[in-house]
């Protein structure tokens, strides 16, 4: 048991479990939704990724843990395959999840954080997200097969059938309201709302955390400056969400669960919603302790835990380490490599990708394609920055402290 706890602690180092989550998500889609084409195409890609992890793990211990976990998940998903969407399998997975959670509650450190009143809704959210993701993908899987077999999605078979609002809809709503009222009353009687001592501007708590739904943004502060993590990226999240119906021109899958007909849209959305948004919130809530240091779920929140600050800027890597020169005085020259990389990333990458992804470019048209690519590149920026931090201790690509412009 202690070994397992240590395993999970090391594994949950934020950046790497993030990568694991993204790749596990890709595998989930690959093995369980797009079954049939698994063994032929691209399946080797996952094995190659695993092999890279093993080699890297020989140098960095957490990566070896990651590799082990990765192959376990790969094996399990390949074994289960589309059977993941059978209610029986889903039920057992839920029982396993709840059981694992219940067992973990015996650990004093885990209990302390999971049972904190304001964190209770987030624990509930984790399970709700898992359940509803499973339901949505199961329905998508069933509909995909119906369409493949030449039929129509389940929702269409009954779309002509109309019911009277009274009694069918009204009663459903009534039951929902009664149920919700009971849940709210029991919850409110059973769990007191947190109230700490009176506000005191002179004594700041450690860690000082934003309200839980903004903890994903606070977590991004580790990798980006506040102007990006706190202002630009949230704005882009809102703009990006609003742009979805105008970027996505695929007329299929309107009003019913489906995956195969719109795998790119769903893939990107789930990556943003589950990995970028929800997982970062969970990390910020449960895994970030004093001084915003990282703690595994079974680790004691030691306020004296020290983490060496060894991060360096790209300018230093290029000029000092690589070219053995002093840093240029003028910031335009000093930061030229970083500025160039960022410009290339946002300007050239979409243009280069337009050839291999010609299908998208032709279908969407220029403006849609570029807006979509721009937003997608922003979504990818976080894992890229995480990997750079992990591999090179990179702090900033561009660091112009003269005008607070750091990327």
């Amino acid at each position, binding site marked *: 048991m202690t070994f397992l706890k240590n395993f999970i602690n090391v594994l949950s180092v934020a950046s790497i479990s993030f990568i694991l989550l993204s790749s596990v998500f890709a595998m989930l889609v690959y093995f369980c939704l797009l079954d049939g084409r698994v063994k032929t195409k691209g399946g080797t890609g996952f094995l190659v990724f695993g092999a890279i992890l093993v080699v890297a793990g020989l140098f960095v211990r957490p990566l070896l843990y990651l590799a082990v976990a990765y192959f376990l998940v790969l094996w399990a998903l390949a074994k289960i395959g589309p059977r993941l969407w059978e209610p029986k399998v889903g039920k057992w997975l839920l029982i396993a999840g709840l059981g694992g959670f219940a067992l973990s509650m015996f650990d004093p450190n885990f209990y302390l954080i999971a049972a904190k009143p304001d964190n209770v809704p987030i624990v509930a959210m984790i399970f709700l997200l898992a359940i509803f993701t499973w339901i949505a993908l199961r329905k998508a899987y069933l509909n995909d097969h119906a369409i493949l077999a030449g039929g129509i999605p389940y929702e269409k078979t009954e779309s002509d059938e109309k019911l009277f609002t009274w009694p069918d809809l009204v009663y459903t709503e009534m039951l929902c309201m009664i149920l919700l009222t009971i849940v709210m009353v029991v919850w409110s009687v059973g769990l007191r709302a947190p109230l700490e001592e009176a506000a005191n501007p002179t004594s700041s708590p450690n860690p000082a955390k934003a309200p839980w739904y903004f903890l994903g943004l606070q977590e991004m502060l580790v990798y980006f400056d506040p102007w990006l993590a706190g202002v630009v990226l949230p704005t882009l999240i809102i703009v990006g969400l609003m742009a979805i119906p105008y970027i996505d021109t695929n007329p299929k*899958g309107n009003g019913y669960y489906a995956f195969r007909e719109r795998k790119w849209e769903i893939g990107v959305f789930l990556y943003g919603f589950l990995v970028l948004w929800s997982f970062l919130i969970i990390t910020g809530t449960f895994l970030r302790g004093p001084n915003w240091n990282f703690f595994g779920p079974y680790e004691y929140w030691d306020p004296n835990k020290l983490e060496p600050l060894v991060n360096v800027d790209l300018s230093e890597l290029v000029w000092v380490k690589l070219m053995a020169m002093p840093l240029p005085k003028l910031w335009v020259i000093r930061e030229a490599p970083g500025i160039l990389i960022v410009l290339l990333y946002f300007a050239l990458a979409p243009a280069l990708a337009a050839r291999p992804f010609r299908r998208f470019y032709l279908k969407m048209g220029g403006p849609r394609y570029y807006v979509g690519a721009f937003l997608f590149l922003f979504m990818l920026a976080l894992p890229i920055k995480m990997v750079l931090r992990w591999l090179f201790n990179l702090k900033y690509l561009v660091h112009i402290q003269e005008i607070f412009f750091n990327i």
Partner: protein
Amino acid sequence: MTLKQVQEGIVNSQVWKSIFRVGIPNTNRKRVLAVLGSLILHLHPVKVRRSGVRMSYTWCMGGTSFFLFLVETVTGLLLMFYYRPTIEYAFTDIMDLREQAPFGIMREMHRWGAHAMVIAVWLHMFRVFMTGSYKPPREFNWNVGVILLVLTLLLSFTGYLLPWDQLAIWAITVGSNMARASPGAGTEGPMSSLMKLGDVPLIHAGDDARFALIAGRSIGAATLLRFYVLHCMVIPLAAGFLMAIHFWRVRKDGGISGPL
């Protein structure tokens, strides 16, 4: 007198009939009239798609969000009887509410309802995406929904400060510090230092984006009042207005989502 007679007596009385004009909706005609004749129920069409009633399709999350909004409104109104948004009283009023008010679960319900509402709105968005219900002709309503999501978060954020305890001010401090970094509008934002007239900086701690948000250089009495007004009046009214549009457009764009 049997129970049946009592029931009929009530249903046929003038008082009952004046309230529920149709009587018990036991024929199709009366079912139609029951929905059409009621202000609340006529939010719904007379007939709905089969999938619109199916819980496994809608997850009932839009309705849950709205219901929780109503819960928040009612519990919030009750809390307003007890709560004064000033530094002297805010915290002690909450203490009173906790220790003295009879059946004092309104604050609990308000807080847990707020958390639940955020989660319900997310799940609602998730369902709408997964069923492709943002596609034409529902693009605009998806946008209204995104704004409602942002308003939900802002409602929760402004409410977080009101208990005026350590949890409250530090969470809002961390949250509002970000505004300091707004490009061109916060003291520590990129490009802000370039904005000056001669030697006089245009963006400083006394006029930047953070100052506008919290009404001062640090969280204080003015912030509390500002967040209180935003929390109890401005944002709920805005959200209520947008909800009306949202529900209206659900009907106008083809009813509760289903295959088009």
